């Protein structure tokens, strides 16, 4: 039972991550691979605040989201000024650079990870409380994104994504929209990171590496880019998949490779056979 509840926590967190990534990649058409590093910013900020500042956990999680917003703006402003292609390149560099930084700074735990994050909820109901918190936040995030994309702002985002030149010709500032969507998506990932830090009480840089990008990207592509519920369903489906391959009983390193191989082949298959994903709108290449 405890195992299922812990899976629910993870499902909630991945729904938050995939939905926020979908906002960036699916609705706004921005390609970034650095989503896990914003997740990391949230996790490390909340973890460090919990260890050193004894701050209210809700505030620590929100601070994690805020740090992710600030960092995302720092990379999107200079790169989007030139073109969307540069955001992709900057995001890869940003992800690898900050993983390097985390591994080399002892104050954040270095390569061995950040441990001793205090337990905020103790007792038998700990995992269940976190499951409710993660799934509740996930539902809120999906509803927030639905509200955002179905309203006037959503139409602005779609117009910009579909024809940026025409969008600029009617006097709208595409850059501002892109930077703000990127910041919102990254901030939500930061909040997921904060919850992750409080639940697992231990953070390791490997958790936020490039294979995590593949996992989140697969959830979005399989579920359907540009659909509200698709990435959420994709997250749940793809979270169940690794549980099925645990019976192979491979060493941990190889298990990560097998998982990464399955995820990347799913993306390739969907990209060619069903580019709209399971629930995405049609007419997307």
């Amino acid at each position: 039972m405890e195992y299922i509840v812990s899976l629910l926590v993870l499902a909630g967190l991945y729904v938050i991550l995939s939905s926020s990534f979908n906002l960036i990649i699916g609705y706004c058409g921005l390609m970034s691979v650095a989503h896990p590093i914003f997740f990391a910013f949230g996790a490390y900020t909340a973890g460090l605040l919990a260890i050193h500042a004894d701050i209210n956990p809700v505030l620590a999680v929100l601070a994690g989201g805020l740090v992710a917003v600030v960092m995302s703006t720092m990379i999107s402003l200079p790169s989007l000024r030139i073109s969307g292609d540069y955001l992709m390149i900057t995001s890869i560099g940003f992800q690898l650079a900050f993983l390097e930084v985390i591994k080399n700074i002892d104050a954040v735990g270095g390569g061995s990870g950040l441990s001793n994050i205090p337990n905020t909820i103790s007792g038998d109901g700990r995992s269940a409380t976190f499951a409710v918190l993660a799934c509740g936040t996930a539902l809120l995030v999906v509803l927030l994104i639905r509200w955002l994309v179905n309203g006037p702002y959503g139409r602005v985002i779609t117009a910009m994504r579909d024809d940026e030149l025409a969008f600029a010709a009617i006097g709208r500032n595409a850059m501002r929209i892109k930077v703000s969507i990127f910041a919102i998506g990254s901030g939500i990932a930061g909040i997921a990171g904060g919850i992750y830090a409080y639940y697992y009480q231990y953070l390791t840089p490997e958790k936020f590496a490039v294979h995590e990008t593949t996992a989140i990207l697969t959830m979005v592509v399989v579920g359907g880019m540009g659909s509200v519920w698709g990435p959420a369903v994709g997250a749940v489906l793809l979270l169940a998949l690794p549980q099925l391959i645990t019976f192979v009983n491979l060493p941990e390193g190889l298990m990560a490779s097998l998982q990464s191989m399955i995820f990347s082949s799913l993306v390739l298959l969907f990209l060619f056979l069903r580019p709209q994903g399971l629930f995405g709108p049609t007419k997307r290449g």
Partner: protein
Amino acid sequence: MGEASVVVQICWTALSTAIPMILFAVAFSLVLKVVKIWNFAQAGFMAVAFYAMYATYNLLQWPMWLAVLIGLALTLIASLTLEPFGLDVLRRRKSPHLTYFILTLVMSLFLAAFLSMLFGTEPVPLTPEIMSPVKIVGSIVMSHWDLRAIAVGVVLLLLLHQFIIRTRDGQYMLAVADNAELAELYGISAKRTRIVTFFAASIFITAGMWLAGTRGAINAHMPLQMLIFAVVATLLGGTGGIFTSALAAAILSLIQALSVLVIPSQWQGFVLYVFLFVTILFFPKGFNVRNLKLAAILGKSARVMRAGQG
């Protein structure tokens, strides 16, 4: 005097170790110039080249020249699979840029994961012995590997230069890079030219991985980090500038190596990312000498004007 020889030694070692990176940067910028894609799948091709050579030389115990040929053949097969079965399909569908990015990046991650499954995640060298004999010229230590790397780099760059300016296929590459649709109107097959480009890129990738693998241990995930170096060099050299990317890679490697004089060695890798951000912030169109001259002339005129007003 002692310090000067240390600096010269660092520069020499940096230059020789930069050769694989220069070759990767040339392959990357060549594909970007002609095929017009940021080919992140190159990291996967680099891993394929390395492990093909590793398996042939270490597991089958075949000679190294054959290992290099098999490495080249498999890299070429991987590249040529990408063009007709991947990129061409997306071109016909008129897919957005985003889809190309996802395809090349995910293909690279797929190949890395697949090769990790086959060969494990521990880094391995191409040859059991990675130390090579050394010569001392003046006060500079030059290893046989250094000399071999520089020779391979110079020969390949010269061959590519001659290929582009002297052969019909090379001229076609320039034409397709300039305007693929117009080139097709003049009877040039853009498809064939792209295949030739991937073939040339595969030679550079295989040679680079052969050099890198005979110098140190590599695993399937390391090529992506190596590729970032090539991407930064391509950006610095000006996107599409093949030989300026090579020059940028050499300079970048030199700066990275010299950085050990002022920062701790564990932060040496970080210098590359600093360059990435500086390039995107200040030199998004590459580091152009003509722009610098123009800036100098404008600066001089501004100073003259201020002096005149004073």
